Each structure stands twice: as structure tokens, then as C-alpha cells.
């Protein structure tokens, strides 16, 4: 996809916090625990770009997507869409924004109602917003089906009659029905076969060019994200630990966690693969019910020092990076530095 235009900011999140109450005593004031799914996430999405969002399962990617869409109420923080604060709007007030931002779901089987024909599923946005009726709606549904590469004759079928890839196309058609400006893709390809993944990724890329879309592309597969993204944000345990232009991030990962993630990428060239050293992180991801103090990554970080457990590093340019490369780490990784203790790792 094209290089990021330094355009205006379409979506801005500032200090978004989302806690979920859990435990038997959650209904009592002060009782129960809370899962700190997001703890102060700030990011910007510029018009026309694709922002990749990566991180392990459970790090809060999907929660962030739903907070940006305001499907969840925020515990704290602020989400602005097109310069307007939408973080406190009611569901009724959000309705106009629903036409401008849409979500594509991970599970192509769960996100389509099994009892409804796909013509009516794709026509839903028109029905809900009263945009088109009868013949007009039908015509537009069929246009959408053709746009995403489905046979327009199949509008009378049920979701169970389609394959995973086709169902994902249906989900995309539904999301694009009202010509949104922003589409948040929540792991749109991770439930699909690898051969189908490429088709869907390419479809999304084509549609971006055709319809001037802005994407937030969530995935845990770094190769996919690298392929589609202009910029990439890396999440760990409810926080963004690093943001940079895609190639910059791959060339100069600053956060030890990013470096570890990148070192785990499979490489097609066996000679190169042998010469690489993987950074093996010890331990498991800590529970978001009781996250570590200071930098949340410090219990697993090969570079952690005493300070890391005490103060939380802000997300800012490190080691002379410009304002496009932000890292939340007290002791960022320099180019050529080896985190796997020996050999030549990382770098360009």
C-alpha cells in the first residue's frame, strides 16, 4: 500500500482506559477485581493510511478496536473521530458515526447471522440507516457483492453455504455498504487458510485505493501487518509500547518486546534463518488483573533494571528518533545491539 501521506488525523485516541469488572463481588462497590484491558492507550490514525496493530493474544487489540468504535464505553480517556469527541456520546448520538466507521470481524462464521440470507445481511446497513429501499437496496447489495468478488446471484443464500473466505467477503461488503471513511479490521484474516489470507488482504488493499479508506489493521501475524501497513503500533498488556513507520519498525525496533517479536518471524531464506538469533522471552504474559508495576514488560525483559519496575516509561522518541518513531522504554535497543546475548541480531 502507498506510503503514509502526512494527512490530517481521522481518529485520535488519548489515554484510553478500559477496565472490565470481574469476580463474584463485582456488583458491590469496591468489590471484585478488574481486568485492565487497556491502560492509557494513545494513538492517531491519519486519513488514508493503514495503521497496523500487533500484539499477543489478550493484549487488548480487540478491546481497543471496540473502544475506538465506541462499542464499549470507555473507563477513561477520549476518542476523537474527524475532530469530534465521540467518547461520551450515547448510542443514539453515535448513529451518524456508524456510517463513517465500520468494523470487520475476525470470525467469518460468528459474525454472520446463520438464519438470515446474505442479501438481507449485506442490506442491513441500508435498512438500519434508512438509506435505500426495495429494488434500490437490492441493486446496491448486488453491486457490493460484485465489488468484493462475490457472485451477485447468490444474495438468496444463507451464510452456511459459503466458505470462510467468501464469508469474510460478505463481512467486508457489509462493512463497506455505507462507504465508511474508517474501517477497523479486527484480525480479518487470522481465521482463514493461508491461501485465502492473501486474497482477502489484496481485496482490502484494492478497496482502499478504490474507496479512499483508512484502515486500522489488527493482527498477530507480523508478516501480514508489514505487508499492509504504513505505520505499525505494537501493543503489550493493554499499552502501546512502540509506534513507527512500518519499515522503520522492522529496521530499527527500539522496544525489547518489538525486537523479540521480530526475531520470532520466520525467514524464507534458510542461510539467513540460520544466522539469526531468536530472542526467547522467559515467563508468560502477566495477568491483566494484576499487571506489573512500572514498565509492564519488565518481568520478561532481558534489559530490565531496577528503574523499570518503578517508573512507567512514556511513549516518546528515543535514541534520536524523529517524532514518527515513539517507544515506551527506559533502555531502548540500539541498532546492532544483541538481546540474545551473542551473535549478530537485529539491525538492517
Amino acid at each position, binding site marked *: 500500500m502507498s506510503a503514509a501521506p502526512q494527512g490530517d488525523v481521522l481518529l485520535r485516541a488519548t489515554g484510553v482506559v478500559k477496565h472490565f469488572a470481574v469476580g463474584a463481588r463485582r456488583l458491590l462497590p469496591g468489590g471484585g477485581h478488574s481486568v485492565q484491558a487497556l491502560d492509557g492507550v494513545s494513538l492517531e490514525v491519519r486519513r488514508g493510511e493503514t495503521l497496523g496493530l500487533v500484539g499477543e493474544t489478550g493484549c487488548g487489540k480487540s478491546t481497543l478496536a*471496540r473502544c475506538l*468504535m465506541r*462499542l464499549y464505553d470507555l473507563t477513561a480517556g477520549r476518542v476523537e473521530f474527524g475532530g469530534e469527541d465521540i467518547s461520551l456520546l450515547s*448510542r443514539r448520538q*453515535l*448513529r451518524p458515526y*456508524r*456510517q463513517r466507521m*465500520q*468494523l470487520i*470481524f475476525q*470470525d467469518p462464521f*460468528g*459474525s*454472520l*447471522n*446463520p*438464519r*438470515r*440470507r446474505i442479501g438481507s445481511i449485506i442490506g*442491513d*446497513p441500508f435498512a*438500519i*440507516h434508512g438509506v435505500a429501499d426495495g429494488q434500490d437496496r437490492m441493486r446496491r447489495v448486488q453491486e457490493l457483492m460484485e465489488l468484493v468478488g462475490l457472485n451477485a*446471484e*447468490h444474495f*438468496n*443464500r*444463507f451464510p452456511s*453455504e459459503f466458505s470462510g473466505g467468501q464469508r469474510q467477503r460478505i*463481512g467486508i461488503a*457489509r462493512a463497506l455498504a455505507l462507504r465508511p471513511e474508517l474501517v477497523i479490521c479486527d484480525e480479518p484474516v487470522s481465521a482463514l487458510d493461508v491461501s485465502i489470507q492473501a486474497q482477502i488482504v489484496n481485496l482490502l488493499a484494492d478497496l482502499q485505493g478504490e474507496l479512499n479508506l483508512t484502515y486500522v489493521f489488527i493482527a498477530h501475524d507480523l508478516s501480514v501487518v508489514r505487508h499492509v501497513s504504513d505505520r505499525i503500533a505494537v501493543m503489550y498488556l493493554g499499552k502501546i509500547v512502540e509506534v513507527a513507520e512500518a519499515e522503520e519498525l522492522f529496521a530499527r525496533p527500539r522496544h525489547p518486546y518489538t525486537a523479540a517479536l521480530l526475531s520470532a518471524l520466520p525467514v524464507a531464506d534458510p542461510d539467513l534463518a540460520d544466522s539469526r538469533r531468536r530472542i526467547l522471552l522467559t515467563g508468560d504474559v502477566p495477568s491483566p488483573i494484576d499487571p506489573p508495576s512500572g514498565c509492564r514488560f519488565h518481568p520478561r525483559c532481558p534489559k530490565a533494571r531496577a528503574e523499570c519496575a518503578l517508573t512507567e516509561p512514556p511513549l516518546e522518541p528515543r535514541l534520536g528518533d524523529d517524532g514518527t518513531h515513539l517507544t515506551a522504554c527506559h533502555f531502548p535497543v540500539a541498532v546492532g545491539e544483541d538481546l540474545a546475548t551473542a551473535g549478530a541480531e537485529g539491525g538492517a
Partner: protein
Amino acid sequence: MNSLPVEIVEGGAEPLEPPDAIEGRSPWQLAWARLRRDRLALACLIVIALIVIVALAAPLVAWLTGHGPNEEFQTTGLTPDGLPRPPSRAFLFGTDDLGRDVLVRVVYGARISLLSGVLASSVAVALGVVVGLVGGYFGGLVDTLLARLMDVVLSFPFLLFAIALVSITGPGLWVSIFVIAFFSWASVGRVVRGQTLSLREREYVEAARSLGAGDLRIMFVDILPNLVAQVIVYLTLLIPSAVVFEATLSFLGLGVVPPAATWGNMLSESLGYYRVAWWFVLFPGAALLITTLAFNLLGDSVRDAFDPRGDRLFRR
């Protein structure tokens, strides 16, 4: 246990559809196709259809026999001792203690039974669906209140309630229908609530929400269609229980007021005569039995048709 539940509904002999008519078959069509191959279900459907036709044609039966449902034939309908007469050419099902034609009364009784059965269970299902959907969908305090309400209704002793209510309002058809519906909706409500609790967490509900759909639309467009199969099954199983319920109320004198014929009060009146007049007990009893049996068996078949994986009690 003779065959795998593999769906081969369309035979090879059927002509191929032209390509522009490609249409997925809805769960309804699939269920209907399965139901159609179920011989017992077809037999039940035919029996039910016959009962409905006979009930609708009750005045015709009265006209053909020349006997009104409440007409007392003191001379031709009773023996010189004043006892009911057995089945004969004039009275095909015999007569009752007042010399009325049992056939005509059974036929008229079918009207009451079907009317109260269908009406009461429809009201119960509608109420149960709405309460269950609202409780399950909104959750929280609303759900807690509605769930407790259902518990309370289910723990009510229905006969005591019916007796108490009738002592205030006096017996009648509409009171019976109200009582039956009132005691039947809560079980439907519970099932619907439970299903809604799980369905509202589905991703397609979230998708609808992200499209900006309102609560009502999500409840009735996205969630309800996934409940319809269970609701239909419940409806077909509620009808026979409502029919029996109505018969019970009539039997106890709490239902339809006596000169009007119902199966329940015919059975009640026959109690003193069962030794001398078997026909007086047999025909209304058999009518009640056949009706409830047909509806119950049909209900089982409908359930199987909507969920072919479920285990049947009897393979057929």
C-alpha cells in the same frame, strides 16, 4: 438405529434448476422437507386437520343428525328408566344422562378445546417470547426482576389460583384461557431468556450494533429468528397441555359453563354413569386423548425436523 442422519432430500430425478434461480433453502424449507418424510408426523398432521375440520363443521354435523348440541331428547334419547341410550342409528355415539347426542356434543366440544388450546398457548408463547427476550437481552436489574417473576409464576399452585379467580369472576371460556396462558408463559419465557443470554454475545449481534442497529431491531431481527425453531416446538407442545388444562378446568366446573359442551364437563357429567353407559365416557375421553396425542407426537417430530441431530426416543 438403521441409518445415519444424512440429508439427501432432493432425488436425482428432479430437474436441475436454471442457474438464475439459485436460492439457498431456508432452515424452514429444510425442516419442512424433513417433516414431510416423517410418516408419523404426516399422520398427526392429518388427524389434527380432521379434528379442525370437524370442529369447524360442527353446525353441519348438528344439521345432518338433526340434533342440536344442547337439545334434550327426553323420549328418544333416554330409556324408560331415564338412562342414556347406547350408540344406535339415531345416536351414533349414544346419548348422555339428559338425552343429548354425544356425537354432536363431542364435535362442539372440539371447538372449545381447539380454541382454548391454540389461543391460550399462542398468548403464552407471545408473552414468554417478549419477556424472555427483554430479560435476556437487557440483563441486569430488568432481567433479575423478570426472572424472579417467572419463578413466582412457576411456583404458583395453578388449581388454587384458578378456583380463587373463578370465585371472583365466575367461570367462563375467557377466564379459562387467561388462566391457562398465565400459567404457561413462564416456561417459554425461561427457555427464550436462556437462549437470548447466549445469542446476544454472538459476533453478529455486535456487528449489528456496530452498524448502528437499535435494541428492538437487534432483538427481533437478529436474535428472534434464531429462536423461532424452539418457539415453534414449544408452541406445538403447549397446545396439547393447554387442551388438557382446559378439560381439567371444565371437569372441575371452573371452565366453560355447563350447558355448552366441552370434553372436560362431558367427562365430569359421565362420572356417575360409567358403569351403565361406557359410550358417555369413551367418546369425549378418546377425543381428548387423540387430540393431545396427535399434537404431542407432532411436536416431537417438529423438534426433530428443526434439529435433526437430537436423539429421538424412538427411531422411525
